[in-house]
């Protein structure tokens, strides 16, 4: 069958949108800008759906994975040969559906949300640029093309976080995000070098084939490679210790937070580990590190989510925490479960952000939850959809998050010797998740309205439509993973990520564990209800009861301050004082000054012959050049005596 999918169109369509709106946007009619901006992801989505149906709809007609390679290599020097190659398999297909599908919904939402903004065209050009890089990232057939998308989404994120660049905080946040990601990318880059050194290729399938041919390769260099890649993943997916940029990234417009900093870009680290799982499989140590980082981040971020008052920051910490679950899933080798949670999370977290955006919109830009309340009457659609998302993230049956979180926790429980500890950490996180999510829910929608001056109102239909669709997905999106071995999604992903087997000895263990998890979530709700359903002084009393702990958490464990003191201040201090003053100005400058002084002395002697103005200065230079000519014209005379022993004449 000689049909080609033209996979390259999937990223290139948004790129065309970026170019059109980026270059001409300021001069185009707003309707044209909107049309271009929406068509790009819509067409990409349509292509993805078409490919999905062609590949998997009617039985295996096409070989899977399906590979397309650009006839012209990208970089080809010496042993290094890298193509622009795209791969469509089950894993990239799932990701593409989310990216273009949810991406398209968020584009629609943005039309309403950003309609009053001066930078309307610029906004959409960046958003399209993001889709270009993100689809490149997931379609990549080799590590370097993935790195292109990887750094590219970082760029789009930088541009969109700092979209309102007049605000110093926004510009700072963008820069912080880019640099924190660069730290991760440094690790990724070293991982790429190690792959080149050990495998001589960067193509995923070739690396996998070499590993398959050598089943005895375990650990050693492979552990180093995996840990380097993991550094990259922690940067992009905001895990410990590189998570610090994500809360600040909330400076960007809210739809951006939904698309980039919740649903898609930040999941790139999870995708990367799933994509290279054949490497991680060979390094149990690296996998353990992934699991521990995931569990620790999930818990750590959840505690910080408890005390935030900015609605978007609560969601940011929640995102970090949920990404921790996905890392935990990868770490216990339940890649399908991690990807499944990635999918459901994309639905409910995008919805949470969009609904939060709707709330912020309704209150004329207010983000402080202490000034919200009683909104459920005023914004009923936002309330209903957000409630679905809150139930979903808390893992309450039968909402989407229940199935995916349950799958990860179950896999963690069954994992190795210390699996129960990982499971328990995940369970505590689930409790905290319910607590901070229902806290948000109560503070925003219930109690007395606390924003008196504003007139809360629902947004336009362009904003409400995506909320409703995502609301439906947050309810039913998890059903694809219902049943044995992750149900349909597990079966679908099995060819790429391996089958998911239930190794438990205890009957009904999964059922028992999920009942425990749901009970814990309901307990969280109950606590939140008692604390926040009515405005009481209970939260304040609770905080006063443990002042040390509260202060520590409220200040986000002082991690920003510590990083700032060590890395930023430290580096700047060393550069400024030691390198700039002592070494450059002092030692090197002094040496040059000394040399210059000697020359000046010579110059003073020559002063008699020159008047000091520029023309004679130039004349001196010319004279110097002439002297050179004279020297070599007279050279034969000098040489004459030596010509006897040059010996190497012609």
């Amino acid at each position: 069958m000689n049909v080609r999918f033209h996979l390259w169109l999937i990223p290139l369509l948004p790129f065309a949108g970026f170019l059109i709106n980026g270059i001409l946007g300021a001069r185009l009619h707003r309707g044209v800008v909107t049309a271009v901006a929406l068509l790009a992801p819509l067409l990409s989505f349509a292509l993805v759906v078409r490919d999905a149906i062609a590949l998997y709809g009617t039985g295996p007609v096409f070989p899977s994975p399906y590979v397309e390679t650009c006839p012209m290599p990208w970089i080809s020097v010496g042993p290094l040969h890298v193509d622009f190659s795209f791969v469509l398999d089950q894993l990239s297909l799932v990701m593409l559906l989310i990216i273009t599908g949810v991406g398209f919904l968020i584009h629609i939402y943005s039309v309403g949300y950003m309609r009053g903004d001066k930078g309307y065209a610029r906004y959409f050009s960046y958003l399209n640029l993001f889709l270009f890089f993100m689809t490149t990232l997931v379609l990549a057939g080799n590590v370097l093309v993935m790195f292109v998308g990887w750094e590219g989404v970082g760029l789009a994120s930088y541009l969109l976080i700092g979209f309102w660049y007049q605000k110093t905080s926004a510009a700072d946040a963008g820069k912080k995000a880019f640099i924190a990601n660069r730290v991760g990318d440094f690790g990724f880059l070293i991982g790429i070098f190690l792959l080149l050194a050990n495998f001589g290729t960067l193509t995923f399938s070739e690396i996998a084939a070499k590993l398959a041919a050598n089943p005895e390769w375990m650990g050693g260099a492979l552990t180093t490679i995996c840990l380097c890649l993991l550094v990259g993943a922690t940067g992009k997916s905001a895990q410990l210790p590189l998570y610090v940029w994500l809360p600040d990234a909330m400076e960007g417009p809210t739809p951006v937070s939904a698309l980039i900093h919740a649903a898609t870009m930040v999941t790139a680290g999870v995708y990367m580990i799933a994509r290279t799982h054949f490497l991680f499989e060979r390094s149990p140590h690296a996998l353990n590190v992934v699991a521990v980082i995931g569990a620790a981040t999930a818990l750590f971020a959840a505690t910080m989510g408890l005390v935030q008052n900015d609605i978007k920051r609560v969601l940011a910490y929640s995102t970090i925490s949920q990404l921790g679950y996905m890392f935990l899933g990868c770490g216990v080798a339940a890649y399908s479960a991690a990807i499944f949670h990635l999918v459901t999370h994309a639905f409910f977290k995008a919805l949470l952000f969009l609904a939060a955006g709707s709330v912020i919109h309704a209150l004329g830009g207010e983000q402080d939850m202490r000034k919200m309340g009683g909104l459920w009457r005023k914004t009923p659609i936002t309330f209903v959809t957000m409630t679905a998302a809150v139930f979903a993230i808390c893992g309450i049956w039968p909402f989407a998050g229940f199935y995916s979180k349950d799958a990860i926790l179950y896999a963690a429980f069954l994992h190795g010797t210390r699996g129960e500890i990982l499971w328990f950490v995940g369970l505590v996180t689930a409790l905290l998740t319910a607590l901070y999510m229902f806290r948000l829910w109560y503070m925003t929608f219930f109690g007395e309205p606390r924003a008196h001056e504003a007139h809360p109102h629902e947004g336009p239909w362009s904003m409400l439509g995506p909320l409703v669709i995502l609301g439906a997905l947050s309810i039913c999106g998890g059903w694809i993973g219902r049943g044995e071995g992750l149900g349909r999604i597990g079966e679908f992903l099995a060819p790429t990520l391996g089958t998911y087997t239930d190794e438990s000895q205890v009957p009904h263990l999964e059922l028992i564990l999920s009942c425990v998890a749901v009970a814990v979530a309901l307990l969280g709700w109950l606590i939140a209800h008692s604390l926040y359903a009515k405005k009481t002084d209970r939260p304040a009393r609770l905080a006063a009861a443990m002042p040390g702990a509260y202060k520590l958490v409220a200040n986000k464990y002082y991690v920003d301050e510590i990083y700032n003191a060590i890395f930023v201040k430290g580096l700047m201090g060393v550069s400024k004082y030691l390198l700039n003053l002592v070494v450059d100005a002092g030692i090197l400058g002094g040496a040059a000054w000394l040399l210059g002084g000697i020359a000046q002395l010579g110059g003073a002697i020559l002063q008699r012959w020159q008047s000091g103005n520029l023309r004679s200065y130039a004349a001196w230079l010319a004279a110097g050049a002439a002297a050179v000519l004279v020297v070599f014209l007279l050279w034969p005379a000098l040489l004459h005596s030596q010509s006897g022993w040059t010996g190497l004449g012609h």
Partner: protein
Amino acid sequence: MHALDQSILTLILLVPLAGAILVAILPDRGKAPNWLALIVTLFSFVLTLHLPAHFAPGMKGFQFEIDRAWIADPLISYHVGVDGLSLWLVVLTGLLGPVGVLASWNAITARRKVYYSLFLVQQTAMYGVFVSLNLIIYYGFWELSLVPMAILIAMYGRKNGPKAALKFFLFTFIPSALLLVGILWLYARTGTFDYVNLQIYLAHDTLPARALFWVALAFLAAFAVKVPVFPLHGWLGDAFSEAPVALAMVIAGKLGLYSLLRFHVELFPVQARHIAPLMIALAVIGVLYGACLALVQRDFWKVLAFGAVSHFSLVVLAIYGLAPAAWNGAVYQILSLGIVEGGMFVLLGVLDTRYGTSQIAAYGGLAAKLPRTASYFVIASLTMIGLPLLSGFVGEFVILSNTFTDVSRGWAVAAALGTILSAGYMLSLVQRLFYGPESTMAASKPASDLRFNELAALTPLVVLMLVLGVAPSYWFRTMKDGLQPEATQASPMHSAAQSPDSLPVSVHTEGQP
């Protein structure tokens, strides 16, 4: 074979020189010198395009070669030619000609005749450096490239031109004198100035090793200052702040880096191999040192200068790693840096001319009023940072990955830290110039975005950043065969068992826990 092939290099050398004479003798009326210089530089650029169009990538040795006896005693022949190493550097020089003229269009208002004729002399000198295959002719062009530069810095410096010119003079002329001594010594011992012959003589190793060591060191010193290699960069900051934009963009980097490759490593392979560990160390220190200093500068020209030290050092690392593939990366990086630094100079020159200061603290919030300047600046910064799909990434990746696999993992990892730091200083610069609230200084001046001449200079550069980033294989194809380093054959640092199909050496079996 094309009819022009026999004379193209002579034409390339003569056209700017003839233009310089023409500018000097024609009356200085209005913009006449500008237009004349623009036409001449465009014409010479078009001539340079003949080279890649008719270059045969597979061939060994030099192409478009001209070798004519000129002076019998001492034996000096007019020997020029290009190979994969110099081909694109000639074209880059050609491209930066019109860019430089356009960038100077409004900035240079006084004594236009002097400026443009010296500028054109400078063009000839740079072409000469890249195509000369006779050492004494090479030296003539090398020296010629320094003279107009020093004069122009002194005449057109922004604040303290003469001082910067003196610094430049002292730093570059003294080592150049050493270079001349080295060249003359070689002639005394071998009876030839010819590059190709000398290469053969030196390969046969009949000259006293101790003396050769000093000669090679003299060559190295002259080039290392010109690059500049850490710790010889003292002149660069002042030169960047004072030199007119069109000259600042060519003052550092490519001439020195090319010369290191051609006239140090390829001419003295044994000596280069001995000194390589030191040069690698200096290069990596330079990468980090330059980047750290760029972080704390208050003047944007100084940020650019230290950033340049950092980036040039990476090329030095590639050169002295003596790994063949890394050399391709080195040449590619020289090209990319030539383009991106050129763009940066034009953009910062625009700001300096419009606002009259290079103090970063005075700026802020320019993006709202100067959207085009901001966009171009961001793209150039991203290229500088090495974002994939832009030209900076390709060279950086090829250099670092080959250094990692073939030379030294530790040094490669250390140098790769530069990628984090470069993001730090470039994005800080972007932010402090263009983002945040508008500064009082910026608000007090009328906003004027890029003019037509500036757009005409910058747009080709920005397009090239993208093209070079997306389609490097075209360039690599032509470079490959020019770069067959002799020095690598017996390099002690070149690890033996790294063939791509070999088993991963370091992977060992480990029991599953």
